[in-house]
């Protein structure tokens, strides 16, 4: 395109005579000009009559020369050509005989061809949707599982915290300098029971730790006694769920402590034959 503008600019300056005498026209007609030269000539021909005329003249010259030196080919050549083109000719004939466009064109032909691209996009979208939904289910299940575990952890933590609190409290109790530790050792040699009493000399609170006590039948219970001036004083029933330190009754004065096995609910007086452990203060 810029080349045309250049030519325009040169319009008044183009020496058409020189161009015609340059030999470019001859090379164009003989098929020896390159694309650029050909385009230039075609353009100049439109603008300059004398260039167009010079082209015409040389073409006529070459044609005349070819006709003057014409050599008749073998008649067989024409036959071969017509034979080779017979199919093409027949096709053209048929196209010319049949009227071109029928009046009602079925809708199918008018409808634009469904671009297969959209089908693929739709299919891909559906697959993505299904995959996404499946993934959602998976994620939700994972979430639920994680949520449950978290709850369980919280619960565990709470109970652990509670236990921890208990142990801390127990530690405080035991380490208290005012607290006396009294070991209650097994009375019957066959058995191997052990309990510990922690007795705060100031507050007179009594704590029992059933360190190693054999389990009792469900209709019986352990009971703690304080021996005060030779007489047993009820210090409290040892509940089955006492695992660490259990607070018993407050005992102002005692010389010894003992544990007996009593009927469930306890007894006002101890069954001395059922004594399992004892310890002196």
């Amino acid at each position, binding site marked *: 395109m810029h080349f045309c503008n250049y030519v325009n600019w040169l319009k008044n300056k183009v020496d058409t005579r020189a161009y015609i005498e340059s*030999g470019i026209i001859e090379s164009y007609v003989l*098929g*020896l000009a*390159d694309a650029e030269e050909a385009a230039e000539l075609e353009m100049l021909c439109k603008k300059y009559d004398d260039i167009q005329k010079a082209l015409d003249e*040389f073409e006529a010259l070459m*044609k005349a020369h070819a006709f003057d*030196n014409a050599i008749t080919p073998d008649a067989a050549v024409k036959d071969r050509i017509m034979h080779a083109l017979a199919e093409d000719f027949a096709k053209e004939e048929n196209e010319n005989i049949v009227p071109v466009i029928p009046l009602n064109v079925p809708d199918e032909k008018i409808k634009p061809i469904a671009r297969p691209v959209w089908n693929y996009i739709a299919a891909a979208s559906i697959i993505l949707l299904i995959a996404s939904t499946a993934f959602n289910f998976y994620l939700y299940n994972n979430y639920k599982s994680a949520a449950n575990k978290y709850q369980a952890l919280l619960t565990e933590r709470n109970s652990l915290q509670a236990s921890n609190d208990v142990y801390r409290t127990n530690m405080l109790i035991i380490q208290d300098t005012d607290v006396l530790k009294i070991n209650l050792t097994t009375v019957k040699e066959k058995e191997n029971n052990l309990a510990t009493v922690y007795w705060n000399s100031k507050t007179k609170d009594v704590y029992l730790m059933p360190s190693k006590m054999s389990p009792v039948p469900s209709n019986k219970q352990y009971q703690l006694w304080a021996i005060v001036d030779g007489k047993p004083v009820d210090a409290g029933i040892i509940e089955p769920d006492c695992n660490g330190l259990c607070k018993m009754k407050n005992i102002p004065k005692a010389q010894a402590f003992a544990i007996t096995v009593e009927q469930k609910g306890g007894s006002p007086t101890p069954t001395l034959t059922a004594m399992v452990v004892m310890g002196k203060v």
Partner: protein
Amino acid sequence: MPEIIKYTETELVALLKQRQQNAFGYLYDHYSGALYNVILAIVSDRELASDVLQEVFIKIWKQAESYDATKGRLFTWMMNIARNASIDLLRSKSYQNSRQNRELSETVYDSAGVTATNIDLIGLRKLVHSMKEEYKVLVELSYFKGFTQDEISKMLDIPLGTVKTRLRGALLQLRELVKK
């Protein structure tokens, strides 16, 4: 029976584009001789030239749609189809192979230039043969052999610009020879 109808080139073009088979027949009858001459000048061998002629007319029928009247005459268009088909044949493998077994019926090249070994030169070739050496070789290589100016410049070890100007000069001289 003598032809009553005479078509001008313009009419022929129109009819051909309308796929009129009669016009094609007319075209063959009137133009085949001239085109055969063009082909023989390049190919030399008559049998092979006949094959090329056949191919050329088939192409003319099939490519009639692509002929652009604004770019030149119908005959120039046909002539160039004929020339290109001829050069294609010369460059084809089958031709290259058979050449060795054949009596050389065209010009042979040595490092110095062009040596004609056959007196029976057809059409343009006869004219070119009478040109001066430096013009002759350029026309031979470009028109009859189909080499580009770039290739020629390398083959003859001449600058491309020189090839261009010299070839144009040769063609101008050729024009003068054709006029006679």
